[in-house]
Structures are given as structure tokens and as C-alpha cells.
């Protein structure tokens, strides 16, 4: 069978599955699967850049995605009145000072001769720097967190818009997408600088750590993200359903197509999101494809397949790894910002590694590592499974337990546990693909 036909068929099957959901359940959930499928596909593209192109193992995808979410808050929300005057400069000053201390330490380490004196100076500098940093940061933070904690208690963002959230759409929030990429790239640079060039496992462990820390920061730094109180009502780049329903032109058009205005508005909003996401996906996919077929992409694959030989040919392996690691993480950050924009809220408590790191890995491996189209396919397919396995598991459990007496402890336990079926399913899918078809659904050429 011709390759193009096979790939088209695979995409067709996934599209068919989603259409079935539309008919069997409702179109709103089908469109939601498409939305999140697009976001997942972008994350998978980013991970494929790292793993498929360069063989870098990143277990911190969750952290980069969450940094994108942070960007959505910082760009989308309006500044909290009075917060910046109260403690904003103090916080920024403290952060700059902290960064300055680390930078100065690095300079010192590079320029002073090795020895006990250097160690002492560096230690003294770090310790003083830390205490000054804390003494500057803490009072400003408590000032910010005192401002109307029930509603604000944080700095807010930089959105200059009219702030009528719930009425007008706000394209300014789109700026969060590239900014999310930048944030993720920054974190990736720090990790890459320390862990690349060592054993491959070290990068995995370092990324695992940075992800946990980023989530800890989002959860506990209330001045930045309101912590577990969540930021809600991030402006949307698309119209609100209520506004549409109050718009006579829209209602008329919906009626002429035979739609109820409420249904039509929900579907239309989802379609608009899908269009926006699709544009981003197509741009990134095009760029990835160009990168894959460029001399740079060939060099990366050469490094991946034989590091020693590539190094002997004069390629700077660590620098190339750093480059591609930053790029891939940035793509994950973009996807994270898009997801938070879609949800209109940042809930740091929902970031768990099984959902945001390992699920993306399953997508990349199942789709076909090293193949961009494969990642996109994997993104859609695995997201579809992730959403649909739960109802399927519940149904299965109900079938299994249908013979048991109502109210028996085992029956209740089994039905309650159905929700955990999807972890198991994903693990089994990953292992089966790795074992029997390690190149994935759409293998690398």
C-alpha cells in the first residue's frame, strides 16, 4: 500500500472515531476532543523534536506546559489595582537581585583560580545573596497578598484591555502563546546547560525535577498565580456564547441553518478555537518538516544515531542538543499557553505528571517517533482514547458486575475503580507498541 494512502487512511480513521462520538454522544464533546487533540498534537510535536530528532529524553513536559499556562495569566489578566505600587517593584527588584547573585557567582567561578578561597567566596556570596533576596522579597509578597485576597491577592497580568470579561473577546491574550514558548525555553536553557553532555538518564531526572519545582512554584507563590486559589476568567480570544446569543445577526444565521441559538453559539465558539489552534499547528508542523529535511535536521539525526562519529566529524554535539532541547520545550510551552487560554483558567493543582508528561510520551511513541505527522496522529488518537476509555471502562465494569448482587462491596469497588482504568490502558498501549511496533503507526522514513 502506498504511504500517502496509508497515512490518509490512519487520519481518516481517527476523524471517523471523532465523528462517531459526535453522533453517539454530542457534537460539543466531539469538538472538544478536536480542540484538545490539536493542543496534544502540538505538545507531541515538541517532544518529537527532542526525542525523535535528537534522542533526548524529557520527563518534564508538565513543567514546560505549566509555564505556558503562567504566561497566559501574566498576559491575559489585567493588573491588580494597587498591587504593583504596593510590592511589585520590590518583587521585581528581589528577583533581579537573585538572578544577579547567581550570574555574579558564575562569573566568579569562571575567573578565580580554583581552590579553597574560591569555594569560600562563592559560598559567602550565595548565602548573603539568599538572605538579602528573602529580606527584599518577603515583605513585598505579603503586601501584594494582602490586597483583596478573596478576589486578587496577586500581581495580575499586563493586559491593558477594557477588562469586560464575559462580553468582548480580547486578541491581546494571543500574545501569551509566544511568551509561553519563551518562558519554557528559558527553563529549558537552565536545565540543558547543566544536564546535557552527561549521561542520557541525567537529563531525564533533571527534567523530572524542574517540572515538580515549577508546579510547586505555581501552587505556592500566591503573589504570582494565586496558588491553589486558581486564576479564573482569563480573557478569551474568541467571542463569548452569551454575546453571540444576544446578537440578532448570529441568531438569524443560526436559525437559517436550522440550529438552536444556544447550541449554535457553543459550537461556533469551539470551531473558532479550533481554527486558531489549527493555524498554530500547521505553522509548527510546516516548520518541523522543514527542519527535519534541512541540513540541520540531518545533522541532528546523525548525532542521534552515532554521537561519537558525529563528534569526530566536528559537530558540536552538546550545543546542538541544547538547541533542539530548547526548541522542543518552547513548543510545549506554546501548547500550554493555548490550553490555559482554552480553559480560561489556571489551576495549578491539576498539573499531574501522568496526564501531562507520560500521556504525551505515549502519543509520540504510538504515533511514530521521528515522524512529525506521526506525532500529530498520535496526539489525536491517544487523546481520543484518554477521553473515551473512562466511559468504556465503566461500561465494561458494569457488564462484568451485572451478575453480582446490588450493593455488594466488590461491585461498588469495581465500578468506582473504573476511573483508574485509563492509566492501566495507556501503560499497556505504550508497552505493546514499544514491543511489537517500536517505530509507531507512521514510522520515520
Amino acid at each position, binding site marked *: 500500500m502506498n504511504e500517502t494512502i496509508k497515512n490518509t487512511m490512519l487520519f481518516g480513521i481517527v476523524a471517523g472515531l471523532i465523528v462517531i462520538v459526535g453522533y453517539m454522544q454530542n457534537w460539543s464533546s466531539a469538538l472538544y476532543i478536536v480542540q484538545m487533540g490539536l493542543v496534544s498534537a502540538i505538545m507531541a510535536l515538541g517532544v518529537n523534536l527532542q526525542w525523535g530528532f535528537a*534522542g533526548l*529524553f524529557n*520527563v518534564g513536559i508538565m513543567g514546560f506546559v505549566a509555564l505556558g499556562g503562567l504566561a497566559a495569566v501574566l498576559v491575559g489578566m489585567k493588573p491588580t489595582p494597587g498591587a504593583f505600587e504596593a510590592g511589585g517593584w520590590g518583587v521585581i527588584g528581589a528577583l533581579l537581585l537573585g538572578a544577579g547573585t547567581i550570574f555574579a557567582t558564575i562569573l566568579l567561578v569562571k575567573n578565580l583560580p580554583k581552590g579553597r578561597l574560591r569555594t569560600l567566596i562563592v559560598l559567602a556570596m550565595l548565602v548573603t545573596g*539568599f538572605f538579602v533576596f*528573602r529580606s527584599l522579597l518577603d515583605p513585598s509578597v505579603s503586601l501584594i497578598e494582602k490586597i483583596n485576597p478573596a478576589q486578587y491577592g496577586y500581581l495580575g497580568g499586563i493586559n491593558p484591555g477594557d477588562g469586560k470579561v464575559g462580553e468582548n473577546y480580547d486578541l491581546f491574550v494571543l500574545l501569551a502563546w509566544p511568551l509561553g514558548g519563551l518562558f519554557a525555553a528559558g527553563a529549558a536553557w537552565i536545565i540543558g546547560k*547543566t*544536564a546535557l553532555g*552527561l*549521561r*542520557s*538518564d*541525567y537529563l*531525564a*531526572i*533533571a527534567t*523530572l*525535577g*524542574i517540572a*515538580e*519545582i515549577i508546579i*510547586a512554584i505555581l*501552587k*505556592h507563590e500566591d503573589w504570582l498565580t494565586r496558588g491553589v486559589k486558581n486564576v479564573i476568567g482569563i480573557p478569551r480570544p474568541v467571542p463569548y456564547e452569551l454575546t453571540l446569543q444576544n446578537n440578532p445577526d448570529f441568531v438569524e444565521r443560526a436559525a437559517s441553518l436550522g440550529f438552536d441559538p444556544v447550541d449554535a453559539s457553543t459550537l461556533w465558539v469551539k470551531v473558532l478555537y479550533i481554527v486558531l489552534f489549527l493555524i498554530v499547528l500547521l505553522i509548527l508542523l510546516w516548520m518541523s518538516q522543514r527542519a527535519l529535511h534541512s541540513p540541520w535536521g540531518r545533522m541532528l539525526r546523525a548525532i542521534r544515531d552515532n554521537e561519537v562519529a558525529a563528534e569526530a566529524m566536528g559537530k558540536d554535539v552538546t550545543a546542538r542538543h541544547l538547541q533542539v532541547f530548547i526548541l522542543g520545550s518552547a513548543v510545549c510551552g506554546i501548547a500550554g499557553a493555548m490550553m490555559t487560554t482554552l480553559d480560561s483558567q489556571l489551576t495549578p493543582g491539576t498539573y499531574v*505528571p*501522568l496526564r501531562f508528561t*507520560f500521556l504525551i*510520551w505515549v502519543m509520540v*511513541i504510538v504515533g511514530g517517533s521521528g515522524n512529525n505527522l506521526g506525532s500529530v496522529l498520535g496526539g489525536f488518537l491517544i487523546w481520543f482514547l484518554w477521553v473515551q476509555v473512562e466511559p468504556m471502562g465503566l461500561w465494561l465494569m458494569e457488564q462484568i458486575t451485572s451478575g453480582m448482587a446490588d450493593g455488594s462491596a466488590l461491585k461498588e469497588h469495581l465500578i*468506582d*475503580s473504573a476511573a*483508574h*482504568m*485509563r*492509566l*492501566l*490502558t*495507556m*501503560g*499497556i498501549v*505504550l*508497552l505493546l507498541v*514499544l*514491543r511489537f511496533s*517500536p517505530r509507531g503507526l507512521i514510522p520515520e522514513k
Partner: protein
Amino acid sequence: MDFLNAIVALANYVLIPGIAYGSQLALGALGVTLVYGILRFSNFAHGDTMALGAMSAVLITWLFQSWGISLGPLPTALLALPFAIVITIGLLLFTDRTVYKFYRVKKAKPVILVIVSLGITFIYNGVTRFIIGPNDQNFLDGERFIIKARTFKEMTGLREGLAFKTTQGITIVTAIVVVIALFWFLNKTRSGKSMRAYSDNEDLALLSGINPERVVMITWMIVAALATIAGVLYGLDKSYKPLTYFQLLLPIFASAIVGGLGSPVGAIAGGFVIAFSEVTVTYAWKKVLVYLMPENLEPSGLVQLLSTDYKFAVSFGILLIVLLVKPTGLFKGQSV
């Protein structure tokens, strides 16, 4: 008097919890480092192996409790431990036979094995949640304290109390026993020596007639025992919750790397380094300093370097420093 009070406060809030936590991390890191040394990959499923092992112990403990069996002042979980270890050994050997062996025979790259271990993590995690659910479970019984804070105050007349929990005592004693047994096994027995030989140089070991499959099997059995013991001790000391074991992965890996991956002595040292850094950095020192400083210099704040929410950041920070300064770890590990 003030000085004594300060020492007691230090022991109560830093030394004892640090030693207990350090022992738990050391046992966990030993498991990771053994897998690394023999099978040559970083086993991400180790946290969830601990969770599964501890879960079997929890279930057996409940069974014993329902039969009315108990150990008196000691937790019943100790009695359940050997059975839980057997279950975990069975599980790991089954996993090895069905999953890991295929890649070992194929001589797959280590990073592939790491991904495979991620898949195993998923499955173990799913099984644990499926059987026992994601919530906190209590399986601690018996006497709660060896020394109660109030008894200690009455005994010594000091202002500070010293509490020594049974679980902390058990953790420390068990860890010592396990470590002695492990080192005796590795250094004195034939199987232990063949394990070390295999870890040092695979080809030479094969040439001298060591059966690799046997070495791998023994390794998994030891790892299962270590993981179950570490998991049960941690569960007794803190509380049993499946998700926390996944989060323990970071400090455990940090311990193993700080000590030098593949080096058992290093894993133990690393465990204590990480545990004590975590406890000292996140402890509010005011309580100790109040006794030591002259009254007019007493600290106004809590003197807490980092809030406990950032305890992961401590292990991570140490990990980064070690990677930057000495990637082979304190005791020369196998890796660079």
C-alpha cells in the same frame, strides 16, 4: 540549661526526623542504584514498585488485624512485611520475564529501557489505584511513641520535649539490619560477588562463567525486598498514599546520583545528605536559636530558609550542583 534545651529541640525536629527520612531514602536509593549497576538503566518504576509493595503490606496487615493477630506494641505491618516482599518479588520477576527481558536480550539502548520503565510505572500506578484507590490509608497500630514529649519533659525537667515515634525507631533499626545484611550478601556470598563482578565488567563476568540471568534474577529479588521495606517504612512513618511514592522518585534519584549511581555505599550516604539538607533547609530554626542567642538578639521571624512546599527544590538543587561539579557523585559511580 538553655544549651541542653537547644540540643533537645534540634534532636526532636531535625536529627531524628532526618535520620528516619534518610534511612527511607537510602533504602530506596539502594534499589535504584542496584538496578542501575546490574541492568544499567534508571528505573523510573521504582517509586511505584514501593507503592505496590507497601500496598500488599497494607492489605495483609488489614487481613491480620481482622484475624486479631498483632505484635503488641509493634505495628502489625512488620509481620506482614515478609509476605509483602514475596508478593513484590513475584511481581518484579514476572515484569522482568514479560517485559524487560526482551530488551535485555536485544541489547536495547538504556534510554529505551527507561521509557519501558515509564510504561511499567503507568501500569503499577494503575494497578495500585485500581486495588486500593488513590486516597490515604491508615495501617499503623501498636504503641505510637517510644518516648513521649511530656514524659521526657517530666523525666529531665527541660522545657523542650523530645518525642521519639515507634515508627522512627523501627525505621532506623530496620534500615541498619537491612544494610548490614545487604553488604554481607554483596561481599561475602558467591552470588553477591558474582553480582559485583557483573556490575564491574559484564564481559569479564560472562567469561568467568557467571550466569547473567541468575544475576539479574537475584538483583530483582533484592530490589523488590528493598523497595517493599522502604515503602512500608515510609508509609508507617508518614502515611500511605500512592501518589507520594511517585513524588519520592526525585529525592531517591537525587540520593543515588549524589552518592554515585551504581555504588551502594554512595546510595546510603546520598540518602542522608538529601534528607538532612531537606530537613535543615525547610526547618524553622527559631525554636533552636531562641535558646542559643542572647535575648536582645532573638530572631523575629521563623528563620526558615525555604517553606516546606519547596522540599523538592532542595533535592533538585543538590542534584544540579552535583551534576555541575562532580557528575560521578561522592563515591565514584559508574556514570558520566
